[in-house]
Structures are given as structure tokens and as C-alpha cells.
């Protein structure tokens, strides 16, 4: 056990954690942030993707203790529960970019980094980003459309 201090969704957090606790399980079980979904637990499906210091990372591929001092953002940070959806989330809704929604939080956190970093990504760049996320419902095209609209990508 160790004491872990970090910032999660803008809130300072201090918790005792097992050394072997994965960041994904820390977020879900210790903090109750169940928007981060756990799929394959070996880095392939992308469902557990969150942001660490502004970068999309697999929360199942790091220990919570490795995030010491860092800033973690989960899907819960994108919009106030009582307020409107973020532009990205709203675009997903309008483009039918989700069905069961299991993969969606991870894709949103990856897409949010892409939008912040790449300015106006090409459709190809969006597709490459989605290569790191498995979705079994949508066939992906609607997800590309949703991200492209917010990014202002040329059709």
C-alpha cells in the first residue's frame, strides 16, 4: 500500500492504493468514476482510454501509482452532468456514432486529444486514431463523421 496524490478531473485526490492496482480499477472502484470502461485489459480495445497530463493513455496499461502527481481526465470531465453535452459528445449523438456505448468513453478521450493537438485533422488521421479503438456496433464511419464535424475536417 502507498499513499497516492494526483488530480482527477480537476479535483485533488489522495488515496491509499495497492502497488499493483491498475489506474482503470482505481478510477472505477476507488473513485467511482465508472465512465471509464474496462474491456480487454491488455491495451487492445481502447475502451479504458483516459487522458494523463493531456495525453490519451490506456488506463489498463499503467498502475495507479505511476500517475502520482499527474492530472487525469476521464470522460466525466467532458460535460457537467446537469449541463449540456460537449460539442464532441453532441456530435456523436447527432451522427449516431454510438449504439451500446461501451467503447464511446475511450474514443471520446482519444478524440479530445486529437482535436486539442492536431487542430484540423484529416479524415485519414481520424481513421488512424480509431485504429486504436474497437467498436462492434457502428462500423466506425459514423464515428469518423462525428469527430470530423467538430474538427472542421474537409469531407
Amino acid at each position, binding site marked *: 500500500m*502507498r499513499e497516492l496524490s494526483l488530480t482527477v478531473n480537476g479535483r485533488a485526490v489522495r488515496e491509499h492504493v*495497492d*502497488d*499493483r492496482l*491498475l489506474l482503470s*480499477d482505481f478510477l472505477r472502484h476507488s473513485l467511482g468514476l465508472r465512465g471509464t470502461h474496462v474491456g480487454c*485489459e*491488455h*491495451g487492445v480495445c*481502447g475502451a479504458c*482510454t483516459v487522458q*494523463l497530463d493531456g*495525453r*490519451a*493513455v*490506456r488506463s*489498463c*496499461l*499503467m*498502475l495507479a*501509482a*505511476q500517475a*502520482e502527481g499527474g492530472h487525469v481526465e476521464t470522460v466525466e470531465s467532458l460535460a457537467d452532468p446537469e449541463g449540456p453535452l460537449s460539442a464532441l459528445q453532441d456530435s456523436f449523438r447527432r451522427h449516431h456514432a454510438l449504439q451500446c456505448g461501451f467503447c464511446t468513453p475511450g474514443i471520446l478521450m*482519444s478524440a479530445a*486529444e*486529437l482535436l486539442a493537438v492536431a487542430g484540423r485533422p484529416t479524415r485519414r488521421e481520424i481513421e*488512424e*486514431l480509431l*485504429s*486504436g479503438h474497437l467498436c462492434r456496433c457502428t462500423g466506425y464511419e459514423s464515428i469518423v463523421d462525428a469527430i470530423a464535424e467538430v474538427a472542421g475536417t474537409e469531407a
Partner: protein
Amino acid sequence: MKPSPLQLERPRSLDEALALLAEHGDDAKLIAGGQSLVPLLNFRLAAPAVLVDLGAVPALAGIEVAGGAVRVGAMCSQRDLERHAAALSACPLLALALPYVGHVATRNRGTVGGSIAHADAAAELPLLLQTLAGEVEVTGAAGARLVTSEAFFVSHLTSCLEADEIVTEVRFPSGGAGWGAGFAEVAPRHGDYAVCAVACALRVEDGVVAEARLGAGAVSDRPLSLTAAAEVLVGSRCEPGALEAATEAARSAIDPSDGMHASAEYRRHLTGVLVGRAAARAYATAGT
């Protein structure tokens, strides 16, 4: 799908990390970005008693283009290297190959030194280092030593690294004027392990290949330098006949095995095809 109980150590300096390795011996395992190791921990294919995390050692993260090489600190993330304009322009193979390394989210955590130390025979960065005959700086209690890529990669997931040593820097030779680069890979899905990958660097003078380097990944138990096929290209203009000869030389230089995604015969065929593609692209971009 959770790691076995373990003790995590987060040293703040290289000396502290080396001391921890010396103290725990075979019970300890280094973790860099963890993008290959944590899946092994989650599957419990690896269950070290002590994990020594290099993530808090700040001295290992730099990138420098100097002395004819792109010198990358072992803990530099693959994503940082992918975005380093000076490094990519000095060693264009990096720009071509890094997008094939996993996905953006794994490159954000995955490190250059970690990928080299992991020594996966199908991984892109070891292939590049072997193709370019780069060097690995390895630091132990007695100090640092430079190891050639040829000596470093022993077999699949096995390097010449001793249990008490740490990869501290990776040196990719930079080409300079006249060099072109080509990279070609086939994988079941983007970001998956390669069925075959080929890297090529050529120096062209007056339209004629003066120097050539070729390497193939995922066709042996370690990344292979295809020297015979590269020699075939020297003196040529990468015309169809020369590319065909290099393809044939590459095919006969390898002895791949059957795998889940490809038979040995298909891998051999594919290696030839990718040699042709990578060499043609390297020739087309040389001198520009």
C-alpha cells in the same frame, strides 16, 4: 486479468534505479512505458516481485541530433519522437515507421528504450535500429557501454542486457544528404504486430545507389539485416531488374516460420514484395 501482488519502486535517479536492481536481483523487473510489460503482468505471464519504474527518472527523456545520430533518451515516449521535427528530418525512417508502432494512445506511454529493451522480433523500432546498424547505450554499476544493434538483439524478447543493466540511450544513425528512406509493413490491422515489415535506407549519387541498408522484421527470432539484398542494389538505379534481384536475395536470405496470420511461404513471398516497395520508395526520396 490483474497483476500479481508486487512492490513498485519509483527511483528518482539512474543511480537509485541501478541500486534497486542490484538489491533485488532476479526478483526485480524494469518497467519503462509498460505498453508491452503491463499486458504480460495482467495476464500473469510475468509476475516480478519488484517493479522498478523508470518513469520518474527525468534524465532519460531527451532527444538530441548530434554526432551523426539521433540520440534518444531511453524514456523518451514514442509519441515525442514522432513529433520531433529535427529527429525525423535527420532520420526519415523514424517518421515512416513510428506511425506503425501500436496506436497513438500506446505511443503516448510507450518509450523508445523500452521497445528496444523488449527486443520483440516483430517490432518496428528494433527493426530500424538493426537496419541502420545503430547503437544502444547500456548503463550498469560499472558505467555505460555502447552495444551495436547486431550484438544487442539476441533472440525474440531477449537482448544482451544483463539483469543489473539499464538501456539509457538509443542511437539511430542519421543519414544526411543523398539518403532516402522506405518502410513497408503488412499487419492484420493497423497497429497490430507485423506479419512482415521491411525498412530500407539508400544513398544515391548521380542517380546510382552508392550505399544501401535493408532490414526485415517478424521473419526471424530477431530483426534481420538483409545485407546480401542491400548489396544487390548498390550500383543500380533501382530499376525493375535490380528490385527483382534484391527481392530474390531477400527471399533466399530468410527462413521464416509458420504463424497464426501467415505461413512461412507467404511470409517469404511477402518479404520479397515489401523489399521491392521499401527500396523503390527509398530510391524515389533519395537526394531530395
